[in-house]
């Protein structure tokens, strides 16, 4: 953690430099508010604005009237509740599978270190370079062969085949002090105990990172669930929303969009540190 960037503390004391910094940072904050928060706020406003207002004056700061019924209509009559639940279930299962695969594999490769570790790492790494589109058709046919169409497993299981997670966990575990593992082994801990009682508790930071990636990726996913979940009853929001656009009135549709955004944004606000410091995995060995 450095406490300085390009500018030195000497620079920062210079009044000329200070005013430039203040100006640039003011502009930066304004710009970020506009592009980062603006569209989200606009969506929130439009979700409770009657269609006519949104169409006539999309940039009006204060609509003529509020129509909170939009949200209720979207949730109940348009059945956003059902798609919402599907989205949550899909994210939860994908998260569980990814965590299981990444942690066990990372543990085996990094802590147990079998002799073929390099080979396996290489084969996993290689899939990173194979763009996912290559898998699209054969994976779809595999799912068809396994009769998993319209089953959540069709989304959960392929999500586990994520090389990025495995490598991330592996690299994290590589960075942990091996003396701890050796001490535990000397104290008589077997591989399972080493995994559950030593490695997992020490892996909390990376578990958090992988979890965030997993949930976000699942919530974002569109093409794959669209292919393997053709039945609207099991579709997540991302797949259902474009179809809804065709037969739902604009204000209710925007309310549905707002509801779909709510959970990810709420998660983000609650776990902000995890999202924003995900890259910095310092403090791994804190008690």
């Amino acid at each position: 953690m450095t406490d300085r960037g390009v500018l030195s503390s000497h620079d920062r004391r210079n009044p000329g430099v200070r005013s430039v910094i203040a100006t640039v940072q003011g502009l930066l904050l304004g710009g970020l508010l506009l592009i980062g928060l603006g569209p989200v706020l606009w969506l929130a406003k439009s979700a409770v604005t009657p269609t006519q207002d949104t169409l006539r004056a999309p940039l009006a700061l204060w609509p003529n009237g509020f129509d909170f019924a939009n949200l209720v209509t979207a949730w109940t009559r348009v059945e956003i509740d059902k798609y919402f639940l599907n989205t949550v279930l899909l994210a939860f299962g994908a998260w569980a599978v990814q965590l299981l695969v990444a942690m066990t594999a990372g543990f085996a490769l990094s802590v147990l270190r079998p002799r073929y570790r390099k080979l396996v790492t290489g084969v996993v790494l290689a899939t990173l370079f194979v763009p996912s589109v290559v898998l699209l058709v054969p994976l779809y046919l595999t799912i068809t062969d396994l009769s998993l169409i319209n089953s959540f497993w069709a989304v959960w299981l392929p999500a586990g085949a994520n090389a990025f997670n495995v490598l991330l966990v592996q690299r994290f575990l590589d960075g942990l002090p091996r003396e701890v593992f050796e001490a535990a082994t000397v104290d008589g801990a077997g591989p399972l105990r080493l995994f559950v009682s030593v490695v997992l508790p020490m892996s909390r930071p990376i578990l958090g990172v992988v979890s965030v990636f997993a949930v976000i990726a699942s919530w974002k996913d569109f093409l794959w669930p669209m292919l393997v979940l053709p039945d609207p009853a099991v579709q997540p929001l991302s797949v259902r929303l474009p179809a809804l656009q065709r037969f739902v009135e604009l204000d209710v549709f925007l309310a549905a969009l707002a509801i779909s955004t709510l959970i990810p944004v709420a998660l983000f606000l609650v776990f902000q540190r995890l999202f924003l410091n995900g890259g910095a995995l310092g403090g791994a060995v804190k008690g």
Partner: protein
Amino acid sequence: MTTTAPTRQAAPRSAVRPAVPPRRRGKRRGTGLAALLFLLPMFAVFGVFSWLPILQTAVMSLQETNLVDTPEFVGLDNFARVLDDPLLWTAVRNTMWFAFLALVIGYPAPLVLAVLMNEVRRLRGLYSALAYLPVVVPPVVAVLLWKFFYDAGPNGLFNTVLGWFGVAPVAWLQDGGTAMVSLVVESTWAAMGGTVIIYLAALTRVPPELYEAAEIDGASVWRKVWHVTLPQLRGVLLITFILQIVGTAQVFLEPFLFTGGGPANRTTTVLLLIYNYAFASSLGGDYGAATALSLMLAVVLALLSALYFRLTRSWSTT
């Protein structure tokens, strides 16, 4: 409490590591089997849903496959048919145009933002949160929202803004000239925050001594950015560059939801074409053509990354 005295001593981010890690061979007979067991979930999931399908792609590209009849080997017919499709070259051109626009618009933006944000001392969290917020908006929501922003009428959101400056309404998505730019702007907005966070993390790892040394040599702010910050970010910049090329070459969501490839195939990308070969209701079911094209795309992407790795390595050694 798993923390023991030796752990506490080992600094979490110690720069000093033992040059040669102590090797321990033998006396761990049980771990071989245990490692295999722990690797089992990974082998199962990767085997069925990654390694096998990758191999299948190669086989299927040589076959005429539909879900009913047994697949029949047709040699390179699929490749020939795809290469003969005039739409392929349109799609390739469009995809390259998208990638180029994304490089011009989307690549420098997060870097500039991150370097500026790194100088912020107060409310840093707020800046990062604002920059990252679009990333957590689900992409489908983002596209559908922006589709409304791009409304071609004079009351469309962006056209309203243009109207303030007396500019005539633009048919963003319906006009062949602006459709692709509109897609790129939205996807830049949606993706930028993630890259900003990556750069910010990398910036905290730039050793302050380098800046101090540059200052002793009397370097200006601009020269410090150019000669210290950017070279220190070289590795990360390379990674994000490759990720972006690989990502833009596979752009699907934006053309699929914004324009469906229109107007007049001006936004049909390679991935959209693959999707259409395999799954679109009109063409559809041509799995051979779809896999042949995805294989060709994969080879091009692999070549691109390999070339880039080579180039940067030779530049950095000479």
